[in-house]
């Protein structure tokens, strides 16, 4: 999958940008605050219809402009396609190959892109909810039933918590317990299955980035007390969970919320048996974060048969000891890639066009003649 052209209007500080894009991608060079990351954000937005900055689309509207528009031409499965999103403070319109799309979910994943950003460090060092969101996004991108299960579970959980808090729930508690388990079991099973599928891939990818086999590993630690093998069997999860709900009833009642269930799951990331969330060095955590994102790209490719575009935001200046160079070398030219960098490092721009970004303008020098 490769972008062929990009046109941006009023997207943050990118007021009017129109570019033809080389098949291998480009390096965006410029100081901070000039608009490099905004360009990556725009491509990410076309892929997921939400910002990697986690803000609502209205925030992306250039100051005072009232609307933005992102449009891209790309090739996918040998076909030329176009995708455009425009939004103002009230509504958002999506056009796929010129035809309007009703719901974003119908066009999500048409353009596949994966972002690697310095903020990804949070995936490893942040709270468990960041890692749950990562897993949920991987599962949810491919599966509408999974997204529905999450929404359903969330609703049951809020109902049960309210019941605990109000203290008037004894008569209906069992019904909500049963609902909680029924809606949560598919989530536990899907997560267990995904992490098992990804474990080897993660170890391999992290070892590549770190250039040594350091024993990086991920493991699913369900909140429901079952081991990760049993977490893929419905009857085992149901049984363990109903027992846990009974055991923990007093605790739940006193706290006024439910203390066991997939909303408390953990994706554990370790190196040589040490949990990186608490004991990882900066370099180790960065390696693990990059590996998680590369795994996301591999999984998307495996599930769709299409190769995602990579958006690498200032990743290489953060990876020390030659990790950045090795990573880039390993990526090769399999993916079209957009890389931001404050400086035009020679090893970065080798084989990639260097675009200068300054005050919301992007300048593409004419491609040098070959040889």
């Amino acid at each position, binding site marked *: 999958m490769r972008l062929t052209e990009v046109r941006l209007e009023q997207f943050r500080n990118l007021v009017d940008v129109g570019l033809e894009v080389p098949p291998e991608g480009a390096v965006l060079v410029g100081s901070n605050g000039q608009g490099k990351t905004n360009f990556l954000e725009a491509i990410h937005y076309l892929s997921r219809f939400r910002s990697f900055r986690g803000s609502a689309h209205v925030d992306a509207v250039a100051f005072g402009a009232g609307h933005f528009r992102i449009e891209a031409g790309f090739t996918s499965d040998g076909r030329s396609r176009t995708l455009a999103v425009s939004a103002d403070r009230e509504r958002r319109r999506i056009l796929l190959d010129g035809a309007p799309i009703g719901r974003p979910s119908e066009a999500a994943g048409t353009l596949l892109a994966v972002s690697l950003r310095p903020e990804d460090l949070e995936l490893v060092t942040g709270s468990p909810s960041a890692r749950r969101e990562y897993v949920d996004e991987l599962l949810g991108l491919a599966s509408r039933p999974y997204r*529905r299960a999450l929404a*359903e579970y969330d609703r049951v959980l809020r109902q*049960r918590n*309210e019941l605990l808090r*109000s203290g008037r729930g004894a008569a209906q508690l069992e*019904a*909500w317990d049963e*609902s909680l388990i029924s809606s949560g079991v598919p989530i536990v099973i899907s997560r267990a299955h995904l992490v098992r599928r990804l474990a080897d891939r993660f170890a391999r990818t992290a070892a590549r980035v770190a250039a040594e086999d350091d024993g990086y590993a991920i493991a699913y630690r369900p909140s429901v007390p079952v081991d990760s093998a049993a977490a893929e069997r419905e009857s085992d999860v149901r049984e363990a969970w109903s027992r846990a709900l009974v055991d923990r009833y007093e605790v739940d009642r006193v706290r006024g919320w439910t203390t066991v269930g997939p909303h408390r799951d953990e994706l554990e990331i370790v190196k040589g048996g040490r949990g990186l969330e608490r004991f990882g060095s900066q370099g180790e955590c960065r390696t693990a974060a990059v590996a998680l994102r590369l795994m996301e790209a591999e999984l998307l490719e495996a599930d769709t048969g299409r190769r995602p575009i990579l958006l690498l935001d200032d990743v290489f200046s953060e990876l020390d000891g030659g990790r950045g160079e090795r990573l880039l070398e390993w990526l090769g030219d399999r993916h079209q890639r957009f890389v931001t960098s404050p400086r035009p490092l020679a090893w970065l721009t080798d084989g990639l066009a260097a675009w200068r970004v300054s005050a919301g303008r992007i300048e593409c020098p004419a491609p040098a003649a070959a040889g």
Partner: protein
Amino acid sequence: MAGAVEQLIEELSRLPGIGRKTASRLTFYLLKQPRESASRLSDAILQVKDRISFCETCGNIAEGRTCTYCLDPRRDESVICVVEEPSDIHVIEKSGGFRGRYHVLHGRLSPLDGVGPEALNVDRLAERVRQGGVEEVILATNPDVEGEATALYLRRALAPLGVRVTRIARGIPMGGSLEFLDEITVGEALAGRREL
């Protein structure tokens, strides 16, 4: 805008599913109608309030103490279909797949809305089953989170009474409401009901 017009818009927009825009469209439509048609509408509204109440047996709307379904001798007394609202009966009747009796809960369990079993028409249901002659209770609460929990609650509440309890099939898209489903879907869900 004239006070009377504004007041009618205000009243109409309080109705479920009617926003201000629709309310003002209705108001201006009524303005253009002859006096008699407005009078028929306002009479009909008052009649509903004055003459209609809830059936003492099943909780459905009724003219008098008992509703037409509970009075109809041709309907099968051994099967009771439990629904959340009287409007759900209308949908099930249109499907043509059910000839038994009904029971209306007038709501569903929802702690977030402060609704517990005591607020629902549940005791009367247990009473009807206890009186005998009922072989099956079909739980046709909505296929959403609250409707499911309500069905699970009722199954537990009815279990000691030894009656067969079934749930309409989940072929219905989850998160839906019976009210918005077509009669074919509802008919299939009824036919595909399973032991709960």
